[in-house]
């Protein structure tokens, strides 16, 4: 497999470390419920199809990336910096 790192270009997947599904959002602050945290830490959709997931380019630029990959074919539709995705996520959350 090869991942097109937005910083480094097309690189072999051996350079990256996988974390998992990027969709669970960490419940924030002191008032998060155990149930919400349980969901965040343990439960996954695990789709057979497009999957937004976190990869770390540890042997490259050290960027965390959000990769949208089809888990049946490994076709990669999009690769983005995780920080940009996280900021967008947080901005969305901030909107009342």
């Amino acid at each position, binding site marked *: 497999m090869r991942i097109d790192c937005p910083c480094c270009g097309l690189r072999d997947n051996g350079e990256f470390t996988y974390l998992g599904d990027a969709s669970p959002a960490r419940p924030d602050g002191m008032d998060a419920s155990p149930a919400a945290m349980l969901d965040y*830490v343990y439960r996954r959709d695990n789709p057979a199809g497009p999957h937004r997931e976190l990869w770390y380019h540890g042997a490259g630029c050290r960027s965390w990336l959000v990769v949208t990959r089809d888990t049946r074919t490994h076709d990669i539709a999009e690769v983005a910096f995780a920080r940009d995705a996280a900021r967008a996520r947080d901005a969305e959350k901030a909107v009342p």
Partner: protein
Amino acid sequence: MRYSLLSVLQQAFKGQRDWTPQWRDAAPKASYDVIIVGGGGHGLATAYYLAEQHGIRNVAVLERSHVGSGNIGRNTTIVRSNYLLPGNVPFYEKSMQLWERLEQDINYNAMVSQRGVLNLYHTDGQRDAYARRGNGMRINGIDAELLDQDQVRAMVPFLDFDNARFPIQGGLLQRRGGTVRHDAVAWGYARAASDRGVDIIQNCAVTGIRRENGRVVGVDTTRGYIGAKKVGLAVAGASSQLAAMVDMRLPIESHVLTAFVSEGLKPLIDTVVTFGAGHFYVSQSDKGGLVFGGDIDGYNSYASRGNLATIEDVMEGGMALWPGLGRLRVLRHWGGVMDMSMDGSPIIDKTHIEGLYLNAGWCYGGFKATPASGFCFAHTIANDAPHALNAAFRLDRFATGAVIDEKGVGAQPNLH
């Protein structure tokens, strides 16, 4: 026809004319007492034990493809009960005991071969971790021996003892561990279950699970609706998809594990050996091929193929452990999609939906568990309550914190 030397000889003279299909290729009936979804090893074993132990014979096993087409036929055939944690130890030992009498139980030679499983250690820390494991096994009445370097050398002298980057210090040996002919397990259970009245229905994919008033009433399939009082899911690799049909999200990710076989060779290695300083384990099949593997690829996958980074890693481990492998050739590598659970241990439990039972999360250790998994799942379904042996494999253990994390890597499936 009962299988025996006599029947084999008789048929040799009759041109093999009288053999019949090993199991009935059944068409679905309108309804069953129990439907097991998944015609792999665990599902077939469950059906067998339902019929044999609990007298529940109005059972169907639904298989989307053909019997044994999943991981039961893709694994590296190792059986062992050298587990560390209390939740796992008695369960896998039960499985070992069931393996030891499997052929007599089901009248099918699955070639259970107790040739030993040897886990190598390369540091003092690993030695102590294996001592902890071995002592725990012994306390549970399971055989375990901690070998020093000389003892390991006597068993497998061709490994790299003298020039290794991570020299072998010793190993943990379970002599009762070994290998089993994987396909034969599926076929043997299918035949034994079919003989006891179970309908094995192939090419029948479940497309929906119907509920009424909070309890299961049947399943929709590609061969029509089939009613059921109870439904058990045993579809490792696709558990999340089935669970999604009833809006459940599981603590499971699907990952691919690559396995390898070499060309056939005259006997080389008698035991199963695992390398402690890299991802590599190896045994030799009765046919002569070296069967080996390593770590999972490490990313969610439903594609049953691995990629080069992992393949290279496995070969490097092989050469580091056993430099005589160099000129031997890999014949074939293939992938299996497995349920990697969040703590590396399985789930055999009731669900919150009445009549729906779950058998999932086997990671890459499902094969050795096949008999006990069937035994315990059958018990759980028949009694609507878990057996003592699978009491720890609860679905709610992630909420309570009673996780069973042998490797101690936490809620990250790809590290288990």
